[in-house]
């Protein structure tokens, strides 16, 4: 079982969280010229690589906040967790 350190609540079990997908995906900015390709990339296209992966989780059965987690997709090791508002490096 994964143990995820919520930046608001501390270390909690995976059961309290729900997954939200790749955190590096950015919605195209409003009020700008946006190509269909930009939308395709935002909605459908993913890197999904083996190794370190920044992803969104929601602490659903806890503080209900969305957080960002850096996790290894091959070993499931978790390196860092951030608040959703913090930029990922």
């Amino acid at each position, binding site marked *: 079982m994964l143990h995820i350190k919520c930046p608001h609540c501390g270390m909690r079990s995976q059961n309290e969280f729900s997954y939200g*997908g790749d955190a590096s995906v950015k919605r195209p900015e409003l009020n700008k010229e946006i190509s269909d390709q930009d939308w395709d990339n935002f909605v459908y296209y993913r890197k999904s*690589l083996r190794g370190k992966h920044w992803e969104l989780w929601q602490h659903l059965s806890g503080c209900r906040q969305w957080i960002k987690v850096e996790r290894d997709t*091959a070993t499931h090791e978790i390196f860092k967790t951030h608040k959703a508002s913090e930029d990922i490096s």
Partner: protein
Amino acid sequence: MQKYSIFNLIKNAFSNHENWDLAWKDPTPKKEYDVVIIGGGGHGLATAYYLAKEHNITNVAIIEKGWIGGGNIGRNTTIIRSNYMHDDNALFSEFGMDLWRRMSQDLNYNVMFSPRGIINLAHSDAQMNTYARRGNSMRLNGIDAELLSREQVKEIIPMADFSENVRFPIFGGLMQPSAGTARHDAVAWGYARQADSMGVDIIQNCEVTGFDISGGKVEGVRTSRGNIKVKKIGLCVAGSTNILADKLNINLPVETHLLQACVSEPVKPVLDRVVTFGAGHFYISQSDKGEMVMGGDLDGYNSYAQRGNLPTLQHVLTEGIAMMPFLSKLKMLRTWGGIMDMSMDGSPIIDKTHIEGLYLNCGWCYGGFKATPASGWTFAHTIAQNRVHELNAGYSLNRFHTGHLLDEKGLGTKTWIS
């Protein structure tokens, strides 16, 4: 190649079965091929077989990083079905059903195809209506479907929980009588043996390290066992699709996720159908050895681990016990995981790409095993003719741009929600 038959079996018994031919050779890679298939799983092996058989292209290599049949073809729950609603999925799968029925004879290898029928259970009036609609769509496409009442289901699977006071009472179900199971390893070995006999090189322990692309055209592939010149490459690597796509600098509408399955200890014959729970995601059948073969949800986050975590397994088995309470008495024999190429609409991609000579076969989600023959057949056609067959025209990569999605379950792009 020696034919497998009762006469050869008797003949070889006299020499203690020590003189059988090897089922396939172990060649060193040549410098050049007409077609290279990357991935020695079910789909890759089937593609090579149909390239040789249907299109007479035999200067073909299958390159496999590990050993053939070591990935999802050796890790699935062996269910074969064509109970789809959308035309593209239904016609493709039903074409596959026909290949399954003839496969043992075709390959001279007993794949133990067992058309025992699949029952999807319904747990509400609304679900019965949905199943009626799906069953009608299937029938319009020439696929057998029967809507079963609660009493009819009870007659077929009396061991399910039919008590009144349950959270998800069984209202009825949708059955596809011609669906079933097959021996998964035999499918890989059967295709490998026949492909090899027609001249295909099966190269194992050979990892792809890069591609030679020049002027938008495929020139070759670099591997851990040397560079190979080739004009056509078929990518058939399921859960590793994103890794190879990254080497090609292309992005795909695919994510890699982990799916677990498990078997119980073997018990006497109790279940002679494939049954799925309609109020969650759980499916079960009984193998010829007597083990109850079970599976359900993805683990729910991107993963290449090929092993799962307990919360999902516990969740899945809770559903199983809700459906068939006797399962709680069984001991678990084995659990395992495989990595799924989850596409963003739940349907696969078999298509050409913007790189000339690069062909793509991926996005099989949970449903790769049953598609093995149809996928190989249509992918071989796409590679040989350099154009898609009408059977896989709907499985285009471009559909994510044009909006012609094949979202059978209506789940949208959250592939981990199942």
